[in-house]
């Protein structure tokens, strides 16, 4: 979605964000719910989004930022078009998730938590995705599970994502 990101309230994205905020307006306890929905809507949580949420819920920006940086789910920076989540559950670790990560680092040139310069991929490490039977595994875009990974398969898998 292309949008003005200034939070001036005029654009469609800001209107949708306001709708999310309205549900908890004036209720500080709704902060995590609002941030979750806001990130799902916008993809990350830049300053203008946090400021708007802080005002809407009636808390300080410090309160919002403290919460955002506490929880791993929240991101302060835009992420790539495709999110690669490498499972770092114990089963995957025992079966070689380290090698998967190493291969991704080599192929994409970015470390976990980083996005490729062309904004194509963001590599993340996540906790058990419950695909222990397929260890080591990774999920791309939250839905495509690639399991029993061997390093040499990885370039081929990545090619499927433009």
């Amino acid at each position, binding site marked *: 979605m292309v949008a003005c990101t200034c939070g001036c309230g005029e654009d469609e994205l800001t209107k949708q964000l306001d709708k999310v905020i309205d549900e908890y307006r004036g209720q500080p306890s709704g902060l*995590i719910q609002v941030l979750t929905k806001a990130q799902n809507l916008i993809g990350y949580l830049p300053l203008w989004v946090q400021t708007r949420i802080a005002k809407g819920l009636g808390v300080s920006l410090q309160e919002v930022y403290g919460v955002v940086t506490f929880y791993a789910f929240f991101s302060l920076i835009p992420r790539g078009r495709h999110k690669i989540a490498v499972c770092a*559950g*114990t089963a995957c670790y*025992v079966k070689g998730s380290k090698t998967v990560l190493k291969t991704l680092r080599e192929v994409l040139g970015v470390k976990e938590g980083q996005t490729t310069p062309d904004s194509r991929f963001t590599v993340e490490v996540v906790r058990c995705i419950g695909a222990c039977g397929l260890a080591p*595994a990774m999920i791309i875009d*939250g839905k495509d599970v690639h399991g029993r990974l061997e390093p040499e398969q990885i370039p081929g898998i990545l090619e499927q994502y433009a």
Partner: protein
Amino acid sequence: MKSLEELAKIKASRREALKIREGIPSATEKAHVMMCGGAGCISSNCKDVVEAMQASLAKNGIADQVQVILTGCMGPCDMGPVAIVYPDATFYRRLKPKDADAIVEEHIMKGNLVPRLLYRAPGAKEPTPKVTDMDLFAKQKKIVLRNNFYIDPTNIEDYIANDGYVALGKALTAMTPAEVVEEVKKAGIRGRGGAGFSTGMKWSFCAASKGTPKYVVCNGDEGDPGAFMDRSVLEGDPHSIIEGMAICGRAIGAEQGYVYVRAEYPLAIDRLSYAIDKAREYGLLGKNIFDTGFNFEIEIRIGAGAFVCGEETALLTSIEGKRGEPKPRPPFPANEGVWAKPTVLNNVETWANIAEIILKGADWYSSIGTAGSKGTKVFALAGRINNTGIVEVPMGTTLREIVYEIGGGIPRKKAFKAVQTGGPSGGCIPAEQLDTPIDFESLTALGAMMGSGGMIVMDEDTCMVDIAKFFMDFIVDESCGKCSPCRIGTKRMLEILERITTGKGKEGDIELLLELGNTIKSTALCGLGQTAPNPILSTIKYFRDEYESHIKENKCAAKVCEFVE
């Protein structure tokens, strides 16, 4: 829902419709195909198999005579996607969309099994077609996962058909709140979240607490990096959580419940919120339940990725929309929990036991398990083991039974080295302790922990120092940073392990790790910090030689660690 009679009526009619799942052939239906919809099977694309199955049924003109249902997790994740075909309870595994025709045309239409898709026990020539005959399930006892073979998690009447909400009805109409608390106490159930505190005691403290209103909270922030039991319950049988919480609400005098679920479990959140809506629709949540004047509501709160939120005070703080940092106890949540009001907090697995306890009685429940640990425990079995998946066994089952009889042993003839229980809070148990019957006390005595129930098997190719580093890395990442021993101490432990695993270990490092570990255990603020050194302490206890060969000889026997000059 106005009365028990109304509930009984729904139950009777639905049970009739589902009798095929009990093995009784039906006049109108040919089969029910229960396709496992657990995380593992979904990862193996079971939904494609469902689609293929439906296409095949349509092609063969019998779509109206066969139901294909996505259930909760059945357990044997390594074989996924798996399915059970009723009425004959045939278990099929490793299904691909292309197998749909064979099952439909051979099995369902002609009554012939499809041998290539059947389960074979390790070493056995003949397959075991019937799920009830499988060795894998023989030693298991399903209480928490009682419905996972049987019901459609999105159908409240399926849950009712298997005695769902009868326990709530009983608690509301035939028991006083004090009797409910007493029953739970007598059952001897202990919290499944980690430390194993008596659930009944917790309820009684909260019931006696003077503050109002009171709250009931379900901890579904399963964060252990090798565990997905709670997820299978939330996805496979959400009503069992709702019912357990409502019973507790009655027992302690609460009208509001919260379920705290990880954002990483979107399906669980969907299933649970759908179930809450349905329960409300059927009058099993909301106002004046069973016409007794009892009101109860449940809200979902989403956890945004912080392992420490599994700790109770941290979770309750997170529900309030804040940084999920633990607080010193006392005050305990039973007196000052969410919004500083009396709160009962139990984890998913504990809640799933409650309805069964009320329904079948404390005596029945306490007859299962060991002297100090009653009932069953669900484990997520993974790592270097043949049958990866979810298992539920009575307390007191030995590790050997789980690893070799249920888990099918170690693949590729490798030698067993250790089993890690309790995740980052637990420890590694070596081969010589395999015959230990599992309960809260025995695991703690071994330097491990029941924890939430992750159980990872390791073989000769696993380096125990590397495993210790894996867990410490996780803890350093997840430490909230509030108390100094955990914030700085775990970081220092990790740095020492990083030295050791890269060939830079020093004389005295093991002693320093021990000193740090023992001090952090006794000084950290919360359960996460106090148990964080366990993976290191237990591996030093049982595998000290591996540490020494890393430090003194720059040698990693498992060839995992890469030493750089």
